[in-house]
């Protein structure tokens, strides 16, 4: 996370931490493991009141940020989400809110208002910028004044809880995005099992779902840049979240090394283990650094934003998981049980690695950019 927070950011971080500790402590999350939403009623609305959903939204639309760099501000929330293994549709709802704030239209702005006050939204990415060669899984076509959506998206976070779905599919003219109420006829939600017990994922199937043309987010066939930007925002938030979870797992394991004695010595006194902790510390600091750099670059629309996002996702995806598994190993047997809290963070980091592009996907993107076949932004 950022080294230097402004007083506003610091206060915001504090109130976020207090809300998470109060409404979603690990003890409560354990009880909510089988709950359909994974959080208590009122929790997400309370977060929205605090500003979680407003940071990527312009003031004209009722949002507002703290520092002028809304995504940097939001990455602080994402980091604390990771550090607390917090539930709730932070990533997707933020992406949808920022997209709606960038586009005009009465229906879109009305939905944005609801999202700002605590309605959840989910991204159905039938087009995947992090895997440019993968065929689209959602098709969107025009039929007079209407749009017709067909296809499947998975995994979709919080699809079960969302009131709105931002659907990304392919039209004959290119990538297209529409916003649809989840209640529209023809939408089927099938819950998926997931590695993370605090978050909920589903498969969303669209069968001749018809929405009015006012549901366009951007131009028909012209959403490629917008979709790429949304994927960057999501990746930045996932990276920040993973760094928070890495920090929590690492802190827990360092403490364990002091508390646990073997052969009359604390684990922390063995050089073989000290060196592993040092390696983990270097991965952790490096992850902080690249996560912050990516957030700042995307927020500022910098020329190297795409590169930094991919570097963050590739590095944190790989070393976050290594760190978490090393923490498990250093805990010994208790590390592979559900009794210890460590697993919440292992799960968070591991699942984040798979979302919005794996390290392998992002290494390919970095190679594309390095070889000069694509522009870096």
């Amino acid at each position, binding site marked *: 996370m950022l*080294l*230097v927070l402004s007083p506003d950011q610091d206060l915001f971080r504090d109130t976020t931490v207090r809300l998470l500790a109060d409404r979603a402590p690990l003890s409560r999350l354990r009880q909510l493991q089988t709950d359909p939403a994974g959080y208590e009623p009122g929790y997400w609305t309370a977060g929205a009141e605090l500003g979680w959903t407003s940071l990527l939204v312009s003031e004209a639309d009722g949002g507002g940020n703290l520092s002028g760099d809304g995504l940097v501000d939001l990455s602080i929330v994402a980091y604390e989400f990771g550090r607390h293994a917090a539930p709730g549709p932070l990533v997707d709802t933020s992406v949808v809110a920022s997209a709606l704030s960038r586009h005009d239209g009465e229906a879109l702005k009305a939905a944005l208002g609801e999202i700002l006050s605590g309605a959840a939204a989910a991204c159905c990415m039938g087009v995947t910028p992090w895997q440019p060669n993968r065929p689209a899984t959602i098709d969107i076509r025009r039929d007079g004044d209407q749009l017709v959506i067909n296809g499947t998206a998975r995994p979709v976070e919080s699809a079960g809880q969302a009131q709105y779905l931002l659907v990304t599919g392919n039209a004959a003219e290119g990538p297209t995005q529409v916003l649809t109420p989840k209640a529209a006829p023809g939408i089927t939600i099938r819950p998926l099992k997931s590695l993370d017990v605090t978050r909920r994922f589903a498969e969303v199937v669209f069968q001749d779902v018809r929405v009015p043309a006012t549901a366009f987010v951007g131009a028909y066939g012209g959403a490629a840049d917008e979709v790429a930007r949304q994927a960057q925002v999501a990746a930045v938030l996932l990276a920040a979240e993973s760094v928070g979870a890495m920090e929590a797992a690492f802190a827990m394991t*360092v403490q364990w*090394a*002091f508390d646990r004695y073997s052969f009359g010595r*604390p684990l*922390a*006194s063995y*050089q073989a283990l*000290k*060196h592993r*902790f*040092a*390696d983990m*510390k*270097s991965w952790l*600091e*490096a992850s*902080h*650094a*690249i996560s*912050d*750099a990516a957030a700042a670059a995307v927020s500022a629309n910098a020329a190297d934003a795409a*590169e*930094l996002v*991919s*570097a963050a996702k*590739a*590095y944190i995806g790989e070393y976050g998981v290594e760190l978490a598994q090393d923490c498990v190993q250093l805990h010994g047997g208790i590390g592979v049980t559900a009794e210890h809290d460590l697993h919440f963070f292992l799960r968070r980091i591991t699942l984040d690695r798979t979302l919005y592009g794996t390290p*392998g996907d*992002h*290494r*390919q*993107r*970095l*190679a*594309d*950019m*390095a*070889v*000069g076949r694509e522009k870096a932004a």
Partner: protein
Amino acid sequence: MSAEMNEPIEDVEAFRLRARAWIGENMGPPQRGDLVRYYPDDAEELAAVTRDRGLQRRLYDGGFAGICFPRAYGGLGLTPAHQRAFNEELAGREFPSRLTVPTFTPCAAVLLDFGTEEQKLRHIPAILRGDEIWCQLLSEPGGGSDVAGATTSAVQDGDHWVINGSKVWTSGAWWGDYALCLARTNWHVSKHQGLTVFIVKLHQPGLEIGRIERLDGSTESCQEFLTDVRVPDSDRVGDVNEGWVVGTRWMFHERVGHNSPLVTMAAGAFRGGSGEPYVVRIAREGGQLDDPRTRDLIGEARTLDLVGRHLLRRLALGVPSGKLSEHSPAVGRLFGGIAAVRQSTIAFEIAGGAAGTWAEDDGATADVGMRFLMRQAACMGGGTTEISRNVIAERMLGMPREPSMDRNVAFRDVPRGPRQTATTEA
């Protein structure tokens, strides 16, 4: 010069534009050997040293030398942000690469921290003009990582000191001018308490400089033998027997290295310049650009590049502001060493069958094999990665220190191996 103290500092962007214009007029493209830092032929190497001195002089005459050095010593008295802007504008251009480390940091940095007014006035302007190249007489044949275990001795003789001993791994000592030298001045107290730092002129009677051939054929590294080298007390840096106070800052500045705000260098220079990344050039030369496995490796190398760059930025911001532990540069050192090793391996892997044998005109692929042979040097120079790991675990995470046989013992009684006599000095 002090009259200018209260002048408002030039805006960074205005400075950048001024620098851009000046660099465009005055600094040409880099030349072969600027970054390799060694020519197989000594005459060529000496010519490159002379050229670097000239480049430094050009910076000085142009009013861009010592951007973060105090004005009192010939610098510009500006901020790290100005230095960074200058380095960015210098991307893809020539710069005095042999003067960055160790001349500007750690040597000049240590002089700024601990030098007397007279020492600073004598040496800092000379360094900024390119007249003085500095080296570090630090490591010894008997101990690499255990720097404070120095056994080179300095004995007071009136207003002089007489130095005897040997130092090693001194880059470029054969063409350098001055060095900082860590020597033992008291053998009857514990290891860290009997050290003193001196300024030593490299070319003088009693100081013999030998060359060490490394695996890649370079002989830039030197070993020095000091026999009754006389140094005036006015060339002592810091107090007598307080050498480890100096030494601790010295090590700090060494770890910060090229990321120091005192260093002028083209941004990206050690990542193969602003042009195509090294691994991409190798893949292109081998016709491997479309191979998915190669592209995965290129992506990994780029990841390490970008992450390493931003890690150093984080450390450069966090340590001076106190947000990160003062020992945090060890994190950068560890990451840098491990990442460089991995990148050597990646380049070697991409080059494949072309890595083991080559012709001089093979392009980027020609030195892949040698770089791979020298791979581990990245985890040694400036303190090994093993020592960094100890520093991180013990100083940053507060874990118990390794047992040692040299604490609270007079240094003369510290075991120094079967071939060393216990006490060699008075």
